[in-house]
């Protein structure tokens, strides 16, 4: 996945680049704002992160120009926390709108959400080893048995599954849960993880969720 950043503040540009690269995206930054539109179109990116206040051209104007030629996903970033501006941007064809200063985990989440919404392969079914995972029903099953997961357990498992073989921090899991309106506490997360481990071991998968001390969890 490639993301192109249009942001005139050099330090923010650099930090977002580091953040996104850390999350596994390929990143290109616009640094010369005389040819912004051309560079965006040439970059062939999967998503555009566009600041509203950029040199030479207003971000909203740029977005309208861009929409004539491309329907790539666009997230507008602005320091103006104003409903009117937001509605305007959305009407010009932005897919999401984020106000500064943003929480970095939230920024990643919104990018993920926009990409997910637009990718057609967003099925309710997935597989883990020989298990069939049904997110809508909240069940895990193989040829012999079916186990029901609670909503929280499913959110955790889903997140681990989409980040398989990667370290997932407790903070990442909390952000994901809270974003799904499950406002659980730190202790409840520990309880949910151990229950999820129990349910997985019912299928004979012991220790597939490993704890990395001081870092988080990893699903193998």
């Amino acid at each position, binding site marked *: 996945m490639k993301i192109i950043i249009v942001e005139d*503040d050099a*330090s*923010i540009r650099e*930090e*977002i680049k*580091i*953040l996104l690269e*850390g999350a596994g995206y390929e990143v290109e930054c616009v640094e010369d704002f005389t040819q912004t539109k051309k560079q965006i179109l040439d970059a062939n990116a999967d998503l555009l992160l566009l600041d509203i206040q950029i040199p030479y051209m207003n971000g909203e104007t740029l977005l309208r120009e861009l929409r004539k030629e491309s329907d790539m996903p666009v997230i507008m970033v602005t*320091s*103006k*926390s*104003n*409903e*009117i501006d*937001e*509605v305007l941007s959305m009407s010009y064809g932005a897919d999401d709108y984020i*106000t*500064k*200063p*943003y*929480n*970095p*985990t*939230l920024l990643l989440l919104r990018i993920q959400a926009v990409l997910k919404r637009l990718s057609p392969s967003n099925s309710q079914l997935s597989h883990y080893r020989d298990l069939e995972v049904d997110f809508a029903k909240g069940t895990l099953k193989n040829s012999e048995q079916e186990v029901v997961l609670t909503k929280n357990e499913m959110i955790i498992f889903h997140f681990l599954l989409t980040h398989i073989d990667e370290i997932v921090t407790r903070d990442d899991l*909390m*952000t994901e849960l*809270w*974003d799904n*309106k499950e*406002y659980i*506490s*730190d202790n409840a997360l520990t309880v949910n993880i151990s229950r999820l481990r129990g349910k997985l071991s019912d299928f004979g998968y012991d220790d597939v969720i490993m704890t990395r001390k001081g870092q988080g969890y990893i699903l193998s």
Partner: protein
Amino acid sequence: MKYLADHKKHIFLIVVFIIIQYLMGKAFHIEKAFLYAQIILTIIFIIIIFTYDYMRKVSFYRQLDHHLKMKEKYLIIETLNRPSFYEGEIMHDALYEITKSMNEKIYEYQSETKHFKEYIEMWIHEVKTPISALSLMLHKDKNNKALNQLKRIENYTEQVLYYIRSQSDAQDYLIKEHQLDQCINHVLMHNKDELLMHHFTIETDHLDCKVKSDSKWLEFILNQIVSNAMKYHKENPLLRFSATEDEDKVVLSIYDNGIGIRASDLPQVFKKSYTGFNGHEEEKSTGMGLFITKRLCDALHHGLTIDSKEGEYTKVTLIFYKEKYYVTKL
């Protein structure tokens, strides 16, 4: 009567004149009947002159006096007809000039305040760029202590922004239909780390309703309420959001089991710079948060009340009215 009292010197001179006339008539042995007729005629003429003068002035002064009873006294010049007598003209023109110069002065201050507000708004948008950059840097280093301090800076800047917005006459907001649980979710996500740090239990109940509001303003309002709950919490803190909906309104209650508010402080909490007992204990209080919150609610026509028992709980109630409420009220 006042008119006559005001002209008592004139009347005195006229009486002296009549007496002189009478005495002169006597001295020159003028026919008595002619003398009396002349005096009566003089008196009649003088009465006519006074009456005429009175009539000319009375309408102008009555109008002036009547209009001075209204609330916007500074508009008086707009309501008066220009009088047709000289004194009145002088007064009318003076009033006109005074009002005009006052308006110019007010305009000067108004545009100065407007420019100042615009500058502050611009400054806040500018300061958000370094705050964002810092937040990204600190997040990378996992420096949570510094991030918490940064969040405080951010909250205080937001407060200034919304103080200005709540003051301006221009409508800075846009009322749209919003999902209530989504707005609450944004605010809880924003405060997630601090809520978890204090080990808050969060309960939500029936938040799946739509409300008409400005989402940015509403999130600021909710953020102030949540900030207060975090600032004044006790052990085993609880924060509960629950909503009820009927045909003309949605009522959102935000309950916390914190230290509460003293009964004597309760009626004052929305006053500007009022800090109360809790505010003195906790030196961080500026007394502006709830004041701004109330003003924003007033501007958006949302109801806002606070109920509390010291040492037990604080319950903030927000009321979002629907069209039906306004229709039946009219």
